[in-house]
């Protein structure tokens, strides 16, 4: 085993304390009136709708209508546009292409006092009204029913992605007349009351096959526009299969209660573990703090490559549960250290074999928790999540879950377990090895052995 020097304890402890402070407080500056976030803290946590209130709704095409994937994508894009036009920027929208369902979750707007889920839901599911207007807001040229389909194509000359439109014969006649008249001017495309594009008419289009191009169109942007145009040409109205809502005041009280529970649990577990294991117990508490900080960091989007995650009430319960389970690695090793001391090993030797001999058990135990947490996330997560895709061969014939709160529990459980492994094994070993080098900490009693009287 590598030599661990005396300063190591302070290095590891400082890193953990630093991580804790940063992940909880975040780093932001306010220059004039413009606040800039460098690192996100707990204030930036995106709370689930079970906490801050909101609506959870599942839409589907009318019964008996077998929608194509394109139609579902188009329907999703309508909802997205409507969300933005209602100033709801924090929505989650998932489309289940196997079951033809669209799940939408959105919180109440912050200034909203009149919580009316029924109106919001009704509005989202309405058939979109697509119009092509003269200029930026002139008379209507053609409507959604005149568009047969819109799709992404490549411009044969430039190779850039464009949106190709196929119009119905009635649409082609109307469009031919308008494009003849408006050459050099613009035609704007509207969904409901939102303008989604305003291309310039280059030529008269007589055959009903138009293309919309832009020098800096990406394929995604082109697809997005095509989806929206298709959305306006959808032959069906979305139906509400499920909807649930919760008022904005109910959940916040519950959240505060759960946060209190978390703090109490942390303190109680720390007291217990210090009484049971003395010095390794203290080390375990520092490691536990690191574990909680790591979990929080994975939720706030602290690490640049891990996006932020919605935290729900069961999600908080998951963090607390991982506090309880988190000391397991330390319990296993501390127990072993005690045992090794009993058979006459030196402190150094006992710590070494305490960690090396228990590694397999801790690893196996953690793997089983990771496996169930992944299944949990797959079962309760949105259809597009990585875990759902991983488990798609098993779940593809069953619909998406009727609830979103549990997904967050799976997530906090899995990050809790991973950080527990890092902290309980690596960080704890480094800290314990280094602190045992100090003369003051050479008494076996501190490690659960017999008191040293010399």
């Amino acid at each position, binding site marked *: 085993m590598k030599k661990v020097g005396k300063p190591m304890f302070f290095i590891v402890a400082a890193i953990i304390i630093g991580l804790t402070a940063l992940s909880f407080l975040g780093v932001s500056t306010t220059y004039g009136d413009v606040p800039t976030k460098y690192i996100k803290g707990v204030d930036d946590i995106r709370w689930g709708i079970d906490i801050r209130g909101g609506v959870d709704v599942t839409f589907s095409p009318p019964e008996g209508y077998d929608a194509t994937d394109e139609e579902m994508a188009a329907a999703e894009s309508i909802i997205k546009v409507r969300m933005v036009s209602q100033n709801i920027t924090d929505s989650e929208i998932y489309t289940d292409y196997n079951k033809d369902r669209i799940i939408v979750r959105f919180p109440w707007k912050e200034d909203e006092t009149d919580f009316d889920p029924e109106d919001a839901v009704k509005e989202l599911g309405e058939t979109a009204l697509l119009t092509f207007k003269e200029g930026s807001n002139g008379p209507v040229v053609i409507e959604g029913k005149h568009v047969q389909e819109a799709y992404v194509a490549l411009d044969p000359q430039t190779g850039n992605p464009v949106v190709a439109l196929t119009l119905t014969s009635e649409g082609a006649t109307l469009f031919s007349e308008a494009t003849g008249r408006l050459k050099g001017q613009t035609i704007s495309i509207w969904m409901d009351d939102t303008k989604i594009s305003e291309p310039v008419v280059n030529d008269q289009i007589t055959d009903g096959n138009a293309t919309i191009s832009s020098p800096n169109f990406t394929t995604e942007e082109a697809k997005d526009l095509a989806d929206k145009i298709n959305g306006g040409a959808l032959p069906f109205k979305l139906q509400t299969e499920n909807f*649930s809502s919760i008022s904005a005041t109910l959940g916040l009280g519950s959240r505060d209660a759960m946060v209190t*529970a978390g703090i109490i649990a942390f303190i109680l577990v720390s007291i217990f573990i210090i009484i049971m294991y003395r010095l390794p117990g203290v080390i375990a508490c520092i490691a536990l703090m690191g574990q909680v900080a790591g979990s929080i960091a994975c939720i706030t989007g602290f690490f640049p490559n891990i996006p932020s995650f919605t935290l729900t009430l069961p999600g908080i*319960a998951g963090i607390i549960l991982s506090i309880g389970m988190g000391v397991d690695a330390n319990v296993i090793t501390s127990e072993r250290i005690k045992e090794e001391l009993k058979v006459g090993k030196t402190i150094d030797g006992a710590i070494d074999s305490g960690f090396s001999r228990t590694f397999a058990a801790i690893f196996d135990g953690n793997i089983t928790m990771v496996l169930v947490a992944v299944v949990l996330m797959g079962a309760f997560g949105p259809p597009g999540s990585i875990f759902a895709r991983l488990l798609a061969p098993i779940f593809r014939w069953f619909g998406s879950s009727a609830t979103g709160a549990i997904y967050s529990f799976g997530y906090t459980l899995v990050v809790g377990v991973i950080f527990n492994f890092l902290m309980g094994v690596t960080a704890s070993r480094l800290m314990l090895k280094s602190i045992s080098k100090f003369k003051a900490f050479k008494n076996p009693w501190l490690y659960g052995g017999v008191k040293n009287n010399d």
Partner: protein
Amino acid sequence: MINIVGRKKIWFTISSAIIIVTILVALIFSVELDIQFRGGSIVTYSHSGELDKGDFAKTIESVLGGEKVSIQEQRDVTTGEMNLVVTLSSKQGISPEKYGEINDALWAAYPQNNIEVVSTSNVDASIGHDFLIKSVVAVAAASVLMIVYIAFRFRKIGGWSAGVFSVLALLHDVMFVFAVFVFFRIPLNDSFIAVVLTILGYSINATVVIYDRIRENKRLLGTKVSLAELVNTSINQSLTRSINTTISTVIAMGTVCVVAIVYNVSSIITFAAPMLVGMIAGAYSSVCIAGPLWVTWQEHKLAKKHG
């Protein structure tokens, strides 16, 4: 050293008794499924002043064309006032339009009572059914994963049987979690599935630590001792760990449970309480059921070979 393997009859009897009683109670009183699984509608209203529940129900029923609704009172977490929880009897859920009509009728009938919607929950029966099947598949998939993993990791000490028996011990834990739902008359919901999956991992985790010790001791002691003795020694060596880890998780989950009860966070109570029971059952089954059961099986196999 405590002779845990030797007292296996006691453990098996206690566990079987609890499981049988649970099944009987479940069969006699039947277990309800939450609307997440069976479909249906629940709406919670807050109000001020006094309201007659019967009249309130009649107002809603008249909009629904005579469909029966049931009403319960529940204390609000934040306001401390009593809310009315309305459950519709239909399993199909209601449309947002119908729901709007109900609210309009209530506002018209009780203009003085500041009636507001606190929460609504509306699930279509077919989605609920799909979700139920998916949940069951998830539990089955997780169980299979566990058996395969244990079989692979412990192939030197008879992995497959070790895997199967640890999952049998799991079924035992699941029955204990189920018992909480049965005895407290909580409808089976997504919490049930989440708890079952978590207990699956938790209990296997505890069992793994013991199997790991068995593996190590087998290497150290070889065939010098009997299988029962080997397993019993291993269980005892890891007993303090099993107890202490259980205590710390019980402290954590117990705190959640107590706080949830004090503040009446019902979605967490139905989650934390079964979790707590499952954890205790999980620790107990890892120590008293999984190992002894496996010994019984191995001895039975041995007896067959020689007999």
